[in-house]
């Protein structure tokens, strides 16, 4: 018998989401798998309770799609790869914030194998994609639920790499709401080297009204155990004109937000990351304001 890096498991390939749900429910320790790169990596690394059954979504037809538009909202299926989304004209032209965020993932192999939804479901606070989705008010649609099928992307994570999804939950789509015409966004992040995971992420989405800002979304990642919206920073922009002063006030509010408590790890010290929250929020707001001025 040749050496195998992965522990043993049963492998199930259901033909529909319903069957996948049943397979997950009928095994005490099952995991759903999309592209598999995060799950298999965790299993190789000796995760605490590796799944004894893997339920692959790969052979379920019709799960790889990007549909809709900016005017009506967009849906992304569970087998849509990051590469699919990066090459999608709809994403690029109608939701540039998402495009800018996922273009930060550099490896073609990772983008070819990894799904957008798999990236989100890992629940890492450094996810470029989830940061953008939080600023876009996206929801996750859970399969097989009735009343409570929609989970806001902002409520997905409870702690670093811990989501509120039950082991039997399958997200069947990402749903991004329609964007009004006068909406301007920008994405900024910091990395050690280009291909590395972000050490800080900021996504802003401004709802403009004349020269002023009617409403704002500011999502920050890798500065706390979960990706969060900097509410005070958003409030600082509501109903005011975008200017150097209002942008500086908003960036300051993000810096002082009680949620802004970055850790020190091999990528950066917490102090540096915290200082950079102010800088990246300012840069992202300036970039979005420049687009608003041009529009």
């Amino acid at each position, binding site marked *: 018998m040749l050496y195998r890096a992965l522990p043993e498991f*049963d492998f199930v390939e259901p033909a529909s989401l319903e069957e996948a749900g049943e397979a997950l429910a009928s095994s005490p320790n099952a995991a759903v798998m999309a592209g598999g790169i995060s799950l298999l990596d965790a299993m190789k690394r000796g995760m605490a309770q590796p799944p004894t059954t893997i339920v692959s979504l790969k052979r379920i037809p019709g799960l790889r799609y990007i549909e809709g538009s900016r005017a009506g909202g967009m849906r992304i299926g569970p087998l849509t790869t990051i590469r699919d989304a990066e090459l999608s004209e709809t994403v690029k032209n109608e939701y540039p914030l998402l495009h800018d965020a996922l273009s930060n993932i550099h490896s073609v192999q990772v983008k070819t194998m990894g799904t957008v939804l798999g990236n989100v479901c890992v629940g890492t606070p450094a996810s470029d994609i989830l940061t953008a989705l939080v600023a876009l008010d996206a929801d996750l649609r859970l399969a097989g639920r009735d009343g409570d099928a929609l989970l806001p992307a902002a409520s997905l994570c409870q702690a670093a790499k811990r989501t509120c999804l039950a082991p039997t939950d399958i997200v069947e789509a990402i749903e991004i709401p329609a964007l009004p015409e006068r909406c301007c966004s920008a994405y900024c992040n910091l990395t050690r080297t280009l291909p590395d995971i972000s050490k800080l992420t900021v996504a802003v989405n401004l709802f403009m009204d004349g020269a002023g800002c009617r409403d704002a979304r500011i999502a920050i990642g890798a500065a706390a155990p979960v990706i969060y919206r900097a509410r005070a920073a958003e409030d600082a922009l509501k109903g005011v004109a975008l200017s150097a002063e209002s942008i500086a006030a908003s960036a300051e509010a993000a810096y002082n937000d009680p949620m802004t408590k970055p850790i020190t790890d091999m990528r950066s010290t917490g102090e540096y990351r915290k200082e950079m929250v102010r800088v990246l929020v300012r840069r992202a707001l300036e970039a979005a304001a420049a687009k608003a001025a041009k529009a």
Partner: protein
Amino acid sequence: MKSMPATFYVNGVRRDLLVDPNALLFEILSDDLGHSGVHRNCDRGDCGICTVLVDGEPVLSCLMLAVEARERQITTIEGLAKGAELHPLQKEFVEKGAVQCGYCTPAMILTAKALLDHNPRPTKEEVKNGLSGTLCRCTGYVKIVEAVLAAAEGGK
């Protein structure tokens, strides 16, 4: 854990095997089928050295279950030359001295092949982006990019 009968098409040759679900594509190609051009390195997706093509797309064979490549066309570096005739990318890698220590070369050439198949006339920037998931620790990227651009020119 039940083994599964699996048919793979490796470099155009049909291979019928009984595969354990926990076998990685890398393990089947390298250990079971003896494709020594499939190199193991970081084992976690960072370096891209284990890249092979599945249905023409570059994948990390260290993070893909072999059973998921059932019924699909797998290309390793051994599948590129036609007899003694090297693939244009292989020729240019030799010509430009882009092979260096050679460890990343199979993955680099396969990643470049996938890039050129999608985009036969890439710019230098597009070549760099297309190869950015495959690391050369000799750090000799200049010659690698030159070789890929030359192969693209030659193929026009």
